[in-house]
């Protein structure tokens, strides 16, 4: 029994090492083809639409309602503590810009666009379409991965800006309508206390999140095995892993940004 457990641990460690090695090789290939070949412009635009434009509605709804509930909860807590809703604009803006805007958008994009990318590449993999790319004179990294990396890196920060804006707007709506905070007060709370570096704190994080979501989604797609069942499994794994890694990365990047004063 002891041997079995040791063997199992050994296999897991070997599997992890193998996956890390394969991931590193994939990244090397992505950087190689990103800088050594002509960009697949049409495919990149197509991916920007699929990853970015098609995520606008769900991002907008998520961030707007998150901003609303944030305003509602902080408003009521503040009212209970201080008998009036104090600094609600500041709280909503800080939270949206630094954390909820980038993290929620990344989670939404990982769940929607990341799943699409893994399922698409995974299906291509199990139906020999990836191998067909080699036989037709191109390289899967150049044709599939580089456009998706670029699309994630471009669209996630833009979606985050939209989420920041709509989240604050939702917060303002609840603040003004439900909590009777004058618009000027709400806006003044933001202008007085929120700085551009607070926006940059969240905005910079999205590039790391985008890179990580692209890596996980593409890696899982390229390593899909076993037909339709395998595609489903790879897609679920990619989404779960991306979401968990967003949270983990968020802490460490935030710690670094706070340390350097952003």
């Amino acid at each position, binding site marked *: 029994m002891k041997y079995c457990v040791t063997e199992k641990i050994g296999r897991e460690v070997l599997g992890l090492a193998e996956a890390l090695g394969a991931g590193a090789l994939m990244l090397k290939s992505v950087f190689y083809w990103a800088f050594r070949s002509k960009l697949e412009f049409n495919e990149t635009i197509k991916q920007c639409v699929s990853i970015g434009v098609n995520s606008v509605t769900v991002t907008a709804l998520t961030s707007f309602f998150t901003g609303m509930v944030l305003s509602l909860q902080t408003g009521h807590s503040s009212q209970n503590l201080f008998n009036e809703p104090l600094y609600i604009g500041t709280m909503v803006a800080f939270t949206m810009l630094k954390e909820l805007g980038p993290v929620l958008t990344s989670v939404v994009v990982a769940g929607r666009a990341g799943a699409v990318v893994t399922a698409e590449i995974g299906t*291509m993999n199990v*139906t020999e379409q990836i*191998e067909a790319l080699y036989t*037709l*004179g191109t390289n899967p990294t150049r044709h599939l991965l580089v456009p998706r990396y670029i699309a994630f890196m471009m669209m996630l920060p833009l979606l985050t800006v939209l989420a920041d804006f709509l989240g604050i707007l939702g917060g303002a709506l609840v603040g003004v309508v439900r909590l009777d905070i004058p618009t000027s007060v709400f806006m003044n709370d933001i202008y007085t206390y929120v700085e551009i570096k607070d926006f940059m704190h969240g905005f910079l994080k999205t590039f790391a999140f985008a890179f990580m979501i692209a890596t996980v989604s593409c890696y899982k797609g390229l390593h899909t095995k076993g037909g339709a069942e395998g595609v489903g499994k790879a897609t679920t794994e990619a989404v779960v892993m991306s979401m968990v890694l967003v949270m983990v990365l968020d802490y460490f990047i935030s710690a670094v940004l706070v340390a350097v004063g952003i």
Partner: protein
Amino acid sequence: MIEIKKLSKAFGEKRILSDISVDIKEGELFSVIGPSGMGKSTFIKCLIRLLRPDSGQIVVDGQDIASTRSEFLLAKVRRSFGYLFQEGALFDSLTVFENVSFGLKYLTDKPRSEYPKIVKEKLALVGLKDVEHLKPSELSVGMKKRVSLARSIAAEPKYILYDEPTTGLDPVTTGMVKDLITDMRAKLGITSVVVTHDLKLALEISSRVAMLYNGEFVEVGEPAKFRQSENKAVKEFMEISGLSRE
């Protein structure tokens, strides 16, 4: 000419190809037959380096690609090949026109204005017309195979590799694909390598047939000679396939 010397490939502990050597001459139609799971697809994928052999040489027109790490060399050699995949491997998101013209962009210097003419011409060669606007999901299995073949020959390769070209097809479509393979050789002079478990097909169309069994070529020869083989595995396979030695 493709020279294969002492080619070996294993997946983990399982040895698939063991020291295989054979020369495939210009203009010939070379078939590799054998039961499923014997490594036929592994063999054909090694030929174009979709799989990396563990050892041995694959010399295509004087260039050994078996162990090269040069993407440039591999891309150059792959340009001389067309590949018909078992399931067609058409790109789902593209139309028939986009599928057939896909390789032209990367494999040739032909201007885009010529693509419609080339696509029409290649589709006609495989007996299809007015299907350019359709998506693969709108095609029958036989049509998919023909579109895939049109895609393989669009850039006018020197060699075509056919991976189980008749698997899953009805007898009528099988006959059609068989005619297409012989036509490609007759009309375009393309050197062809076919891997199949359809012994009858292999004996009808090939200039030479090789039987892959337990990782080795146990018999290689012209169809007439192949039928007379005394090898036990060949005899058994002929029997299972319902073929006589005459």
